[in-house]
């Protein structure tokens, strides 16, 4: 016997995707974006990166392709803040996915008008955590040229030549690996992190212990950090890569998704209650 609601049930996943997509579009159109709720971690990262000024910052870019969309607004806001402050940005990756995304971000910075002398592509380093350890003594590749590469070589050519590290996590090599492999060898280099919600639980203990100098994780802190950089009163009108153009994810599709989940679960519970009742009647 055909289930009366079988067709409807089969189309529910499609309806779910359609509602979330429409919700996202409507959210963007009606400016129903997130309010930047309180997030001390985001305020703290904003203040710490501002203090770096014209320092040398190493970006350990090992985001995951699937979850990068969640943290992309914060990553781009952090890069914009570093560009505004006059910092030099060197990017290194220890995962192929991270390397692909890092190349795209470097390209975006170049197109955004950042002077070539302030950017350095340190490339992909093999060896996962062993590669990280090797980077402590040598991270600048032989083929790297320019004033920034020369200055880094003069300062030792390792991770210790940088004033701070910003780890963009998502893959296996996230802030945890950096703390374990690098912070123990170079405690004087401050390590900051931006990670998706999935890495939040494993990164939080390191933030609480102070081994991570700063951490922004999850949609709430991403939204708060983007707002802090965008609305920074100390910087005047900015252009190009110093601008914050990415909007953090809207809450609307999440709320719609939650609502749909609750409806489906209620339906599952109701059908479970109905089943014994039918059995009893038979």
């Amino acid at each position: 016997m055909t289930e009366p609601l079988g067709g409807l049930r089969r189309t529910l996943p499609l309806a779910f995707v359609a509602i979330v997509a429409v919700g996202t579009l409507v959210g963007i159109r009606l400016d129903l974006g997130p309010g930047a709720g309180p997030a001390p971690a985001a305020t703290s990262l904003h203040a710490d990166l501002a203090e770096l000024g014209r320092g040398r910052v190493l970006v350990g870019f090992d985001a995951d392709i699937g979850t990068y969309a969640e943290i992309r607004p914060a990553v781009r806001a952090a890069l914009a803040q570093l560009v505004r402050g006059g910092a030099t940005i060197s990017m290194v990756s220890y995962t192929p996915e991270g390397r692909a995304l890092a190349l795209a971000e470097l390209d975006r910075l170049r197109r955004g008008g950042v002077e070539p002398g302030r950017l350095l592509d340190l490339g992909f380093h093999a060896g996962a955590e062993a590669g990280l350890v090797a980077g402590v003594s040598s991270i600048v590749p032989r083929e790297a040229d320019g004033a920034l590469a020369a200055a880094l070589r003069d300062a030792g050519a390792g991770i210790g030549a940088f004033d701070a590290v910003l780890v963009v996590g998502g893959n296996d090599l996230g802030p945890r690996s950096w703390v374990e492999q690098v912070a123990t060898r170079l405690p004087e280099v401050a390590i900051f992190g931006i990670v998706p919600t999935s890495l939040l639980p494993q990164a939080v203990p390191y933030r609480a212990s102070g081994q991570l100098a700063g951490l922004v994780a999850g949609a709430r802190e991403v939204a708060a950090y983007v707002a802090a950089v965008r609305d920074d009163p100390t910087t005047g009108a900015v252009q190009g890569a110093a601008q914050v153009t990415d909007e953090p994810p809207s809450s609307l599709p999440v709320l719609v998704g939650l609502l749909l989940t609750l409806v489906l679960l209620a339906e599952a519970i109701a059908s479970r209650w109905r089943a014994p009742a039918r059995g009893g009647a038979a």
Partner: protein
Amino acid sequence: MRRSIPAALVVGVGLLLLLDFLVVNPTLGAISGAIVELVVILFAAAAVLGAILLAVRHAGALALPGGDRIGSALVLVGMAIVLVPGLMATDGAAAPSVRWVVGALVVPIGASLLALVAVFLIPAARRGMRLRPRDTAVILVAACVVVVLLLPLGGDVGAALGDGATWVLDVPLRAVFAGLLIGVSLAAAVAATRFLFGLAGTDD
């Protein structure tokens, strides 16, 4: 004898790296640096070998009757789409063609696959509610609470959610994960010690 050689190697390398960590000595530093370089080269070689074996396996599967020829062809075409532009360009992965492949194909496909998790989670949750209602309900309620707490909302509601999220992160979650990290580290240390002293089972 078979077991003693790798064990001796592990002990020697481990002690060298540990000593380099504790003692500042240029010779020791050079030796441990060389060992780390060797591990990096091994990692890279393993990755290249893995890719070659994958290609050979799927190329072989194409010739076999009854195999998943479409799947194997897709794997090989996918590898070629990423590899060929990179190998043809002088600047490798930084070539515009590779960046286009990544930006226009790999990233959207990867993000879409992850987004599908949300769709598949709902039928899984429904099935779970029918099979193991109590366990599933606990998981779902916890997941919903975390999602709501992490919602980036403004105003009074956002402030209340933010306070709740901060407490959850700083107290229960931190305690659980700090405990997990410490536990995993201790377990790894014990397992390593058992291996070094030859106390591990024959299947280790």
